């Protein structure tokens, strides 16, 4: 089998040949370096700009998203502002909402659970959540999150009750941030303590916010 003739167990066939799309291996790293060399060579981007972009990305963390969620849990009016315009809400808390991509926050309720995927690449609200986890960029997650989302959630340890599951495929300019439900048993908690329950995975929608007893354990990478 040549590179252009690989089989397609993932539900599409060919209208034009392409090499197998995989996320792993050194080939991707080599491709990125070659692309970077070409972009620099043609004066489209400088090494410094690349470095600044990477520095910005790795300086971002889900702690920022967690602050937004915790504030929304304690302040219903702030929650409305977050749902209406997440960028303005982030600025209100002194957070960096990042460059142009538009962040839209969606709220999990007792009737609806949201879960986010980007089937076409790996779109993600990086400014508020940091770099996306490896699994988020993997082909299995990207394909199964839309076709078998409840199966995927079960593998993450989340057995959804009888609620509507709404999968958001962020195919274009919008980046989605899930506001998980506030856990029971957190009445009277302050924002900082609440934020410790807001895991990265809960803001992607593959998990609920941590239960109060589990708050001491850290998020897995």
């Amino acid at each position, binding site marked *: 089998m040549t590179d252009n003739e690989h089989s397609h167990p993932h*539900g*599409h066939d060919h*209208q*034009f040949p392409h090499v197998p799309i995989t996320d792993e291996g050194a080939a991707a790293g080599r491709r990125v370096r070659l692309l970077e060399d070409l972009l620099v060579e043609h004066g489209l981007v400088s090494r410094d700009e690349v470095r600044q972009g990477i520095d910005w990305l790795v300086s971002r963390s889900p702690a920022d998203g967690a602050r937004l969620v915790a504030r929304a849990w304690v302040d219903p009016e702030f929650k409305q502002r977050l749902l209406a315009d997440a960028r303005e809400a982030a600025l209100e808390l002194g957070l960096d909402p990042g460059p142009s991509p*538009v962040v*839209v926050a969606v709220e999990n309720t007792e009737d609806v659970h949201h879960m986010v995927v980007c*089937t*076409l690449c790996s779109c993600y609200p990086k400014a508020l959540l940091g770099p996306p986890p490896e699994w988020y960029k993997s082909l299995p997650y990207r394909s199964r999150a*839309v*076709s*078998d*989302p*409840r*199966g995927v959630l079960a593998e993450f340890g989340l057995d959804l009750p*009888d609620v*509507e*599951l*709404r*999968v*958001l*495929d*962020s*195919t*274009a*300019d*919008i980046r989605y941030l899930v506001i998980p439900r506030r856990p029971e048993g957190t009445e009277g908690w302050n924002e900082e303590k609440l934020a410790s329950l807001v895991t990265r995975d809960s803001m992607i929608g593959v998990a609920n916010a941590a239960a109060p007893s589990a708050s001491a354990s850290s998020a897995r990478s």
Partner: protein
Amino acid sequence: MRYLPGQEVRVADRFHAGHHRTPGYLKGKVGEIQRVHNSFPNPETRAYGGDGLPVQALYQVAFAQNDVWEAYSGRQGDRLCVDIFEHWLEAVE
């Protein structure tokens, strides 16, 4: 802005050679406008050094999972909400 929330639309079932942001698994499927986002530069020309103009309206379209996947085994009422540019949508009468 051609479509309004609640309106039924079909995703155009056409081949597009080159970069585009309409997932193949939705081509030809019928959904409902859930939300009107904003207008953005067209990625189909922007990807090749163009300016992406004219901008295209972007909609969040909701599809019933059962309409997208024949073998969907989840709950009735589960939905898939996908952002699709206006020039990929057709009105359903």
